[in-house]
């Protein structure tokens, strides 16, 4: 593989990995802190993408669409927690999966009513619609770099929020002893609501910024949800740091798996292996560390 091609693939895998992190960090946070398995998490990614598409249509400007879509996502998160999710904290896994699965169906139906079933596309905003030349024939789109940049900034903010702020300390404390946090005068229910809304917003933001490089289509949430669960399981359920490492790993394995498939595909060497590579990685890691890379040891 040529150096420039390798570099492009590397950048692609990092961008994909960081985007996965944006989505899966919310999934793992909500699990780690509230103990909720939310299978509707992928829907927020889809909602974000459709919001970006429809608002760009209406407002005629991607940035204006983003500026409006983010607060909408926050509100969706807050309302959903209040309306539905808070009743799940004391329920077991079966209820959580059933109810959040029901949410997927509702969101898909709503999406169909509001935005139709067609595949949509969002144009790359003009300011970032450029490429960086790597060689005479190869170049790399600036917008993809911008995606990685946004994800890195968000990851940095998340780190700061969770590790350095009092809200973050409360969040971490609440994941081990909810009752004690309350007894110190802190409204744990409010913290839960904010964490859930944060997760929704991050997933939706991922959908918004990914919209210009990947098409906007029905079911896109479910596709990404499966990968996100792989991330969360590999990284260790509840670990944000684990989600970051696992996302980057999956980005690498997925991207390079496809490239190698193209190269070796000529000689028919198990082309299916490429699409399975992510799951093979998960199986290998779980054999080595059943609790995931940064998961808590149990027993």
């Amino acid at each position, binding site marked *: 593989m040529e150096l420039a091609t390798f570099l492009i693939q590397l950048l692609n895998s990092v961008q994909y990995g960081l985007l996965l992190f944006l989505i899966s960090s919310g999934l793992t946070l909500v699990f780690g802190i509230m103990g909720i398995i939310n299978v509707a998490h992928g829907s927020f990614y889809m909602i974000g993408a459709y919001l970006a598409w429809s608002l760009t249509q209406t407002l005629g400007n991607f940035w204006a669409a983003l500026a409006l879509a983010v607060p909408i996502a926050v509100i969706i998160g807050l309302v959903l927690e209040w309306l539905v999710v808070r009743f799940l904290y004391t329920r077991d896994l079966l209820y959580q999966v059933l109810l959040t699965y029901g949410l997927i169906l509702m969101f898909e139906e709503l999406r169909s009513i509001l935005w139709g079933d067609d595949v949509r596309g969002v144009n790359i905003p003009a300011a970032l619609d450029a490429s960086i030349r790597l060689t005479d024939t190869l170049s790399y789109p600036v917008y993809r770099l911008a995606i990685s940049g946004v994800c890195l900034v968000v990851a940095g903010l998340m780190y700061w929020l969770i590790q350095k702020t*009092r809200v973050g*300390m*409360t969040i*971490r*404390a609440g*994941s*081990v*002893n909810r*009752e*004690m946090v*309350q*007894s*110190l*005068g*802190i*409204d*744990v*229910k409010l913290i839960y609501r904010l964490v859930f809304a944060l997760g929704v917003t991050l997933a939706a933001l991922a959908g918004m910024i990914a919209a210009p490089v990947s098409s906007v289509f029905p079911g896109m949430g479910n596709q990404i949800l499966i990968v996100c669960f792989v991330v969360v399981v590999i990284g260790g359920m509840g670990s944000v740091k684990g989600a970051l490492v696992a996302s980057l790993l999956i980005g690498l394995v997925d991207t390079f798996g496809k490239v190698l498939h193209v190269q070796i595909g000529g000689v028919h060497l198990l082309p299916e292996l490429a699409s399975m590579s992510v799951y093979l990685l998960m199986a290998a890691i779980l054999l080595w560390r059943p609790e995931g890379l940064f998961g808590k040891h149990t027993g």
Partner: protein
Amino acid sequence: MTEPVAPSLAQPPLIEAAGIHTHYGASHVLHGIDFSIRAGETVALMGRNGMGKSTLIRSMLGLVRPSAGRVMVKGHDMTRAAPHLIARAGVAYVPEGRGIFPNLTVRENLIMAARAGASGQRDWTFDRVMASFPRLAERLSHGGGQLSGGEQQMLTIGRALMTNPDLLILDEATEGLAPLISREIWRIVGTIRQSGIATVLVDKNFAALSTIADRVQILVKGQTVFAASAAQLRAQPEVREAYLGV
């Protein structure tokens, strides 16, 4: 509502519980208990294992729902109020078995709890807690889980003080600690008491409490069997023998 309250009236108790009944599922644990404590007082809540001391406290703090009875905090009915609201009214709690956050550092355990008290007082600051617990000051960046039992207890007490409470409830503060450390904890409790914070002390050990408590209330099987001054309990060895076994 509109009736003005005469300012000359004595302040209501910090906590006043009346007729508390509490169940765990089908088992009836508290059978109509009254309990109260006023500003600056130290009340010992005593009784053998399983008599309902912790349950009474948890019922007053909103951590367990009493099935009947009333809990007034500073004159406000907070019977089924959320625990964080009761805490914000000025009540701090050091639970049985401590309750530090092992995944937070010592410093984080303390600063996450910091706030002004119910009447805006900020007597207890991070620095003052450090001065009172020099052992913690040496271990600020340690994880809470790395501390010894005694240090964990100091951290829990220090953390409770960071909320600037008017009332501190300590459930078995010295349980499982070596005598030397226990004495250190009692000394600290003494200084907290002197600083004007009312304290409820739950313990089985009368010797430690008799000099520090103003009043003693003894529970047997979810009922109050004795409630009087510590001096009166000192003068009645047969009561101690019967209800505490000491």
